[in-house]
């Protein structure tokens, strides 16, 4: 299994009026593809904050004090907002607790599901055009650099040819796509129309038929409908005459029309499934030979001939030159990387020495950032995230250092002042009902360490790159670049219409278990029951096909039967789509079914971590015991073991184990020192002093031991049966 997400030493706090509230205190976990991690804890234990940090939607007063969230080679805590938008909702999606507050109440559910699809498509089209142009310009530059000034004219011509025939291809493809989309839409229309008529829903049959006839006539494209135009016209006429003959009042026999619609549907299906012309090739041919009617040749043959024509006349030479350009860019980058490697020790030494001066530090940062930016091979389609994020990461780490330099003495002074005041009041014999807000002082050495670490990471990466430079296959890179350009060009013309998005949404609604999605599509959220609403929210989350799904208490607002259904749904989707799920809940009962691993959180720390079996059959931390024993099951008769008191105020986090105050098993050391993680089995650990070899033996409450005994007996019985 491969790790998809790693959280390392995450620390998050919130600025509040009373002081800094430590919400998450140094937690780490890994997530493997296709696995479910359940995070369990009381409200305020930091479980939601963790998930929000992963999505980059922390509240404005939050401070990320340290740690890393690694996903897809990026550190989600450091990537700029623009990059985060590519990930949020797209790669990592979230389901919220209250479905109604996550939905817009005055918009029908259909548009809410399609909204993201349409926006994503629009954004992709826009950015693709930009990137296409930028990369082409860069390529031209590199090619000129290789072949010298004298070849400039030729290169210019080639690049402009490439651009032009791509434009021609786009034009042709756009025409084709319009007709193709119309065919797809009409097909969906007919399916829906027949469905509604069959279900005796309210439809205006006359208008519906007229509409179909009109739309059918509009489907016309040289490549798509070649040789079928007459048949289409005849069918359209048929439908139109049927519409004319239709009378609302008399009982109409619709079987004839239905048969016609069936024919149209199969015709459209044929069109949709027909071989797609390769417009990249045809574009070149058509540009060089204007006025030749290409539509007469069958598409397959056309694809072949134009490929040969393109290769012979243009592509072979172009690829040769392009490869040279790519190699040039790569060589430059390797040289620049060597320069960076030469530069880095000096910069590292400067920062590692500490005691930074603001002005010179800024210069050093700029020097490093410029050098690294210059060393990035922009023609590499495989983007190097370390290099791309180096400048911003270094800048923010240095900024943090200087902020601490300024703020630390202030904090010290404030703390001293307030402590003195408090002591003075106490000395006077007055009762003081306020505490001194603890000082927020950053360790400057730690901050320096962060800076140096960023530099070290880059150095390691670049050293590997330089060592590996000879093994890079330039031809593969050149082809990848052309593919990339082609993909961008066709992304520019791939337009997702509302009608197509609707079809995708209906498919999705069907997948999440909503009956008759065609009718439900046009309803408002209030017309759905709680469970159905949650399904809509899940459909929205899945619309972008994410890798990770974060479920933040998705069933807390639902009742037992619906809860079971939603859990089953999440489990099924997880299997079918190989989703990775982070499931956040305060109810240990619901996660037994769904979780592979469980992390029990208390006061911003993970106190116990293990597989579901470990945590349920062999719980070790007193907090896990308390959680388990405070919920009754069907055989519980005695008084429940409620956890006394409330969680600690995290503005003043306790020195020792945060749970010690509410823990009847607390040892003396629990109040003085935080327990480390004691390993029980390789997959299971708990942070409690009770696991220390010298600790007195503590038995979990008998309510739990009894239950585990019962469960084991029952399961054993099942296995034997």
């Amino acid at each position, binding site marked *: 299994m491969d790790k998809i997400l790693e959280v390392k030493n995450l620390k998050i706090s919130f600025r509040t009026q009373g002081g800094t509230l430590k919400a998450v205190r140094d937690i780490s976990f890994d997530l493997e593809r296709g696995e479910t991690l359940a995070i369990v804890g009381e409200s305020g234990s930091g479980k939601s904050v963790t998930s929000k940090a992963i999505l980059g939607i922390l509240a404005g007063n939050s401070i990320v004090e340290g740690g890393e969230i690694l996903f897809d080679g990026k550190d989600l805590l450091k990537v700029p907002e623009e990059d985060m938008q590519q990930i949020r909702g797209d790669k990592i999606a979230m389901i919220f607790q209250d479905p109604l507050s996550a939905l817009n109440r005055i918009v029908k559910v259909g548009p809410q599901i399609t909204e993201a699809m349409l926006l994503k498509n629009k954004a992709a089209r826009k950015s693709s055009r930009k990137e296409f142009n930028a990369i082409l310009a860069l390529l031209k530059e590199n090619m000129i650099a290789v072949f010298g000034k004298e070849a400039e004219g030729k290169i210019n011509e080639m690049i402009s040819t490439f651009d032009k025939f791509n434009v021609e291809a786009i034009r042709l493809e756009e025409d084709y796509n319009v007709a193709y989309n119309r065919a797809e839409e009409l097909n969906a229309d007919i399916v829906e129309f027949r469905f509604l008529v069959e279900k005796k829903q309210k439809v205006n049959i006359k208008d519906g038929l007229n509409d179909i006839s009109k739309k059918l006539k509009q489907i016309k494209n040289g490549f798509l409908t070649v040789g079928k135009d007459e048949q289409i016209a005849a069918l359209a006429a048929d439908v139109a005459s049927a519409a004319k003959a239709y009378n609302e009042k008399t009982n109409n026999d619709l079987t004839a029309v239905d048969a016609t619609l069936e024919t149209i549907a199969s015709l459209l299906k044929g069109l949709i499934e027909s071989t797609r012309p390769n417009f990249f090739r045809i574009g070149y041919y058509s540009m060089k030979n204007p006025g030749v009617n290409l539509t007469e040749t069958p598409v397959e043959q056309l694809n072949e001939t134009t490929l040969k024509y393109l290769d012979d006349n243009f592509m072979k030479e172009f690829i040769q030159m392009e490869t040279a350009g790519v190699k040039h860019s790569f060589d430059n980058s390797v040289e620049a990387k060597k320069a960076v490697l030469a530069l880095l020790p000096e910069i590292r030494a400067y920062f590692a020495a500490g005691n930074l001066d603001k002005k010179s530090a800024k210069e050093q940062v700029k020097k490093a950032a410029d050098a690294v930016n210059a060393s990035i091979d922009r023609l590499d389609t495989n983007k190097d995230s370390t290099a791309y994020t180096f400048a911003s990461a270094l800048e923010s780490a240095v900024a943090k250092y200087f902020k601490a330099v300024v703020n630390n003495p202030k904090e010290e002074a404030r703390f001293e002042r307030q402590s003195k005041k408090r002591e003075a009041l106490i000395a006077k014999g007055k009762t003081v009902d306020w505490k001194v807000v603890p000082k927020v002082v950053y360790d400057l050495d730690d901050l320096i360490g962060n800076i140096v670490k960023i530099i070290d990471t880059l150095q390691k990466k670049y050293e590997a790159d330089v060592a590996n430079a000879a093994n890079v296959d330039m031809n593969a890179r050149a082809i990848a670049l052309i593919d990339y350009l082609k993909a961008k060009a066709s992304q520019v013309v791939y337009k997702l219409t509302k009608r197509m998005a609707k079809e995708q949404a209906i498919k999705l609604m069907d997948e999440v278990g909503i009956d008759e999605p065609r009718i439900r599509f046009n309803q408002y959220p209030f017309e759905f029951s709680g469970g159905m609403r949650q399904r809509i929210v899940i459909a929205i989350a899945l619309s972008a096909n994410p890798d990770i799904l974060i479920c933040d208490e998705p069933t807390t607002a639902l009742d*037992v039967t619906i809860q079971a259904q939603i859990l089953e749904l999440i489990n099924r989707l997880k299997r079918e789509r190989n989703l990775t799920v982070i499931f956040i809940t*305060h109810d240990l*009962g619901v996660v037994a079914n769904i979780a592979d691993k469980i992390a029990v959180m208390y006061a911003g720390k993970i106190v116990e971590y293990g597989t579901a079996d470990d945590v349920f059959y062999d719980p070790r931390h007193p907090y896990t015991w308390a959680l388990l024993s*405070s*919920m009754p099951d*069907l055989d519980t008769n005695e008084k*429940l073991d*409620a956890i006394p008191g*409330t969680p600690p105020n995290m503005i003043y986090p306790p020195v020792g184990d945060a749970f010690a105050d509410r823990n009847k098993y607390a040892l003396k050391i629990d109040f003085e020192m935080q327990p480390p993680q004691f390993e029980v089995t390789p997959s299971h650990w708990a942070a409690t002093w009770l696991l220390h070899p010298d600790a007195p033996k503590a038995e979990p409450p008998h309510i739990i031991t009894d239950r585990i005994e019962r469960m084991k007996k029952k399961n054993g019985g099942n296995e034997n049966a």
Partner: protein
Amino acid sequence: MPEERNDEVLLRVEHLCQYFRSGKYENKAVDDVSFDIKKGEVFGLVGESGCGKTTTGRSIIKIYDITSGSVYFKGQRVTAGTRSYRDAIKEAKQRIGDEIKALKANGADDAQIAAKKAELAEIIAKNKAEIASAKHDSKYSDRDYAATLVAQVKAEYEEKMKNASPEELPALKKKFRHDLNVAKKTKLITKIQMIFQDPVASLNPRMTVKELIAEGLVINGIKDKQYIEEKVYEILELVGLVREHAGRYPHEFSGGQKQRIGIARSVIMRPDMIIADEPISALDVSIQAQVINLLNELRDTLGLTILFIAHDLSVVKYFSDRIGVMYHGKMVELASSEELFAHPLHPYTKSLLSAIPLPDPHHEKQRQRITYNPAAVHDYSENKPSTRELKPGHFVYCNDAEEEAYRKELGL
């Protein structure tokens, strides 16, 4: 310990129907539900959201005017609906009208027709009397109750004042006026109190805890500030809060503490019965246990009767003596909690029980949830269902064929 409790029925719900009009249609939120709650017991009401369990609770406490049926509290009818009587009149008019028409067509004599007409008039008069009585009870049950209290107070003080010395008399008179005022303002329905699901929404954020808890007393006509203060402190300690909390505002409390304030608000009225409408659904698991333990303690110390509405079956099982299962406005099964979980009969109850999540991964991963599809399970086209007692105390909503099948299942 059911045998230790006496069998006095505290609350009786008979054929309760609560319909809501929405546009052209009528939404039958609660449809013909009957049950008794005995003094000192906890009666659990479960079902999925929208099945009418909350509406039942709210109808009992007169937040809605019920459509038909009656609710008796301490033997007194507190609310009643008139729909069933009006329907009876309508139906009789139709039926007897048709009969008279038939008689006329057959050429029957006037005496026969007159007899029919008399029969109709009798039915109408009887039902009209019922309607009048229902309306009277719904409207004046509180006034009647207050009148009896006033009479009691008057009788008590008449005696005292006769024997009092002249110097005691002014103080006694003052006390008499106060007690009389309280008696006049006391309503029978305040002997039933409600705890709401969402502790945040049920507390006014602009009132201090003291004001919130004392509100009921103030409305009831008690003006003695010192008495109110003492009462509030007493109740605060009873629900596990401290005196210092009285001056604070609701937002300064955690969810569990807020729910304790909600409980204090209802307990200060010294109710005989509490309707707890999902009191723990909005709380964390650890806090849920605290609140349940608190309710259990209060039940012992104050001798409360509790109608416990919830959808978490393991909690209901743990907390209740008897459980009623509701589905789409009908009470489909009612039994003692052990009986219900040991021998569930109605398919809906079975599906509900199969959905309970347990903290047992092996069991959970093999769990087969039973889905309930009323259209497929029941055939009520010919034989109409009704509520039947299959075993003492075990009621199921079924028809003849199903009754036989259930009896077989029980081994009767």
